[in-house]
């Protein structure tokens, strides 16, 4: 008898269950663990206090990203510069001590491979299809772009993984987000995921793991898939998945930490079996028509507050749910926006191109393609590009992208999380607006009082040129 058709999620989950308790909770094996400086110090502290060791230090990779300044890290003589903020410096020092004490592979702040954990993992071939991957960061969902079951965890879970290489988890429900048809010209993976979040809402995916399906994803690059899966958490889903395929294998082959030789062949053979079986059922299905998708921007303080660039700021009265009405009014007050204002009439003073959502080489190429031969508008004061890793930065420089950005009036920075969450000195000034390629437009996210509009790298570049939110398709030739 043929076995019951299973989803990609069920296959990965089943392959990692060590044991199942009576109440359905499972002890699940974790194949790969990424660690950064912000959510790990208390985990290492707890291990020390309890006298516990790491079970598998060889399955963890550590890299600082949240706190590191994005200004020069070495002086002209090549000496490492100190970090000005004493608290950030202490957090980085704690990470350095912890990785040394516990024997963890580490890319330090000046290593060429340093970058945002979610950029570094796939880039190094550390993140693999069919693997369970965790990190003390909610955007770990990104690694689902290579077909890994990847999700964010809290610090107590970081400690649990370090000590046991497992987590106690309940199985998730499965949600299929099926995109039918093709994206229009100039519509990017970021527009797509913003549109999806606008449809399902920030809590729509709570309790679910999303699998993104449809030809759009089959034809998408791995970097685009990483962008889509990255923002699954903005739809409430702890993880997002896209089935690994030839595109994935070609992307991973030869990366430093990817399997080699016979291991590679055996791995690919297994990866080919992972895709959801025909006839497998999902607990919920959401169907999206790709033809409906326009370049998207956010107007409010929740990632579900999405509107097409050709649209206008909605009126709070337009929401049926009274609490949503109230939330919309609060959002508009915070954002300093009036209902009915055309999105394309909203001026922006800051541009941020970066974050684990959009800081890979394709993102920088897309932004540079718009900026080539152009300059930022006079009302745009602060415009920075923060590559996702040292390797992305080097690649961009080899292609001359850095010179396009600087000629356009952007600052070309060192890799890190930067103004996505403003833990380092990169913050958006209070009361000013930022066109940002990051993932969250929460109140105060990019700095106290900062007003964030989420959009794609090409759209951020277009906003820089005109000094207002702009449909990149209207810009024409430079």
């Amino acid at each position, binding site marked *: 008898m043929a076995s019951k058709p299973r989803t990609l999620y069920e296959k990965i989950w089943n392959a990692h269950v*060590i044991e199942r*308790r009576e*109440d359905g*909770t499972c*002890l699940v*094996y974790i194949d790969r663990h990424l660690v950064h400086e*912000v*959510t790990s110090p*208390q985990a290492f*502290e707890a291990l020390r206090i*309890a006298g*516990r060791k790491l079970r*598998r230090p*060889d399955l963890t*990779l550590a890299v600082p990203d949240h706190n590191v300044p994005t200004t020069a890290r070495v002086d002209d003589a090549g000496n490492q510069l100190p970090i000005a*903020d004493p*608290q950030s410096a202490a957090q980085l020092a*704690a990470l350095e001590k912890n990785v040394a004490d516990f024997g*963890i*592979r*580490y890319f330090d702040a000046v290593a060429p491979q340093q970058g945002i954990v979610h950029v570094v993992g796939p880039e190094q071939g*550390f993140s*693999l299809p069919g693997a369970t991957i965790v990190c*003390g*960061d*909610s955007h770990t969902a990104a690694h689902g772009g290579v077909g890994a079951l990847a999700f*964010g*965890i*809290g610090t*107590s879970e970081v400690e*649990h993984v370090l*000590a*046991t*290489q*497992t987590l*106690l988890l309940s199985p998730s429900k499965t949600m299929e987000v099926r995109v039918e048809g093709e994206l229009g010209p100039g519509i990017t993976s970021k527009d797509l995921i913003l549109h999806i979040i606008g449809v399902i809402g*920030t*809590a729509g995916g*709570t*309790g679910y793991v999303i699998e993104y399906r449809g030809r759009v994803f089959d034809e998408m690059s791995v970097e685009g898939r990483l962008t889509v899966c990255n923002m699954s958490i903005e739809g*409430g889903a*702890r993880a997002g998945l896209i089935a690994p395929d030839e595109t994935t294998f070609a992307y991973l082959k030869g990366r430093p*930490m990817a*399997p080699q030789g016979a*291991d*590679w062949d*055996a*791995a690919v053979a297994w990866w080919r079996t992972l895709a959801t079986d025909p006839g497998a059922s999902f607990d919920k299905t959401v169907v999206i028509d790709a033809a409906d998708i326009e370049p998207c921007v956010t107007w409010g303080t*929740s990632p579900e507050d999405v509107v097409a660039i050709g649209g206008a700021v909605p009126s709070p009265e337009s929401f049926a749910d009274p*609490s*949503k009405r109230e*939330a919309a009014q609060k959002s508009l007050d915070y954002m300093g926006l009036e209902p009915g204002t055309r999105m394309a009439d909203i001026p922006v003073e800051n541009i941020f191109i970066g974050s684990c959502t959009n800081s890979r080489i394709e993102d920088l190429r897309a932004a540079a393609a718009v900026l080539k031969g152009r300059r930022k508008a006079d009302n745009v004061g602060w415009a920075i590009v923060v590559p996702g890793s040292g390797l992305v930065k080097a690649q961009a420089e080899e292609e001359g992208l850095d010179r396009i950005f600087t000629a356009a009036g952007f600052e070309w920075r060192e890799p890190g999380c930067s103004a996505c*969450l*403003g*833990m380092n000195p990169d913050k958006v000034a209070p009361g000013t607006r930022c066109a940002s390629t990051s993932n*969250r437009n*929460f*109140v*105060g*996210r990019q700095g106290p009082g900062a007003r964030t509009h989420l959009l794609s790298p090409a759209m951020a570049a277009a906003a820089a040129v005109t000094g207002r939110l702009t449909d990149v398709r209207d810009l024409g030739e430079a």
Partner: protein
Amino acid sequence: MKELAEIEGRAIPYGAKNVDTDVIIPARWLKTITREGLGEGAFETVREKHDNVFDDPEYAGAPILIAGDNFGCGSSREHAAWALLDMGVRAVIAPSFSDIFASNAFKNGILTVALPQEQVDRLLEVARTQPLHIDLEAQSVTTPMQDRFRFEIDSFRKHCLLEGLDEVGLTLERSDAITNYEQRQRSDAPWLAKGVNA
């Protein structure tokens, strides 16, 4: 983890929906390397406005927080749970919680009580003048006005909270099963079993 059986006291009637962890504790408070003292930064942006519920002396030291749908969405920062604990909060009542926040809360001995919106609305009203009582063993929230609402909780979490159990310690007792799994993986998926050398 401190064991938890019953909670009696005032509840902060906050009620807001989609409260993200950036609101519970803004990023600038995340530069700490300890778990203590985060209560000072809790709900900082909400507290900038005068007459906010968090600074209302009526609710000073309240062990319960009542919020709206999707509480704790966004970032996975456990600092959100530590900040609540540092404020003295041991239970949060809301119609729903983000998955990661609920897990973080549990691991710090904070009870998350999910109740239907109309029951949460009733508790928001009562909490303005009266204390609430939560009984974990009975899985109930009661008020002096004779309201009694039953809530669901996963039996493993309930057991751990009642006993104050350390989950890492419990899992370490299963290390034979983990070792068996690792041995199996070494033959079935050697490419996964091979780690990255330090």
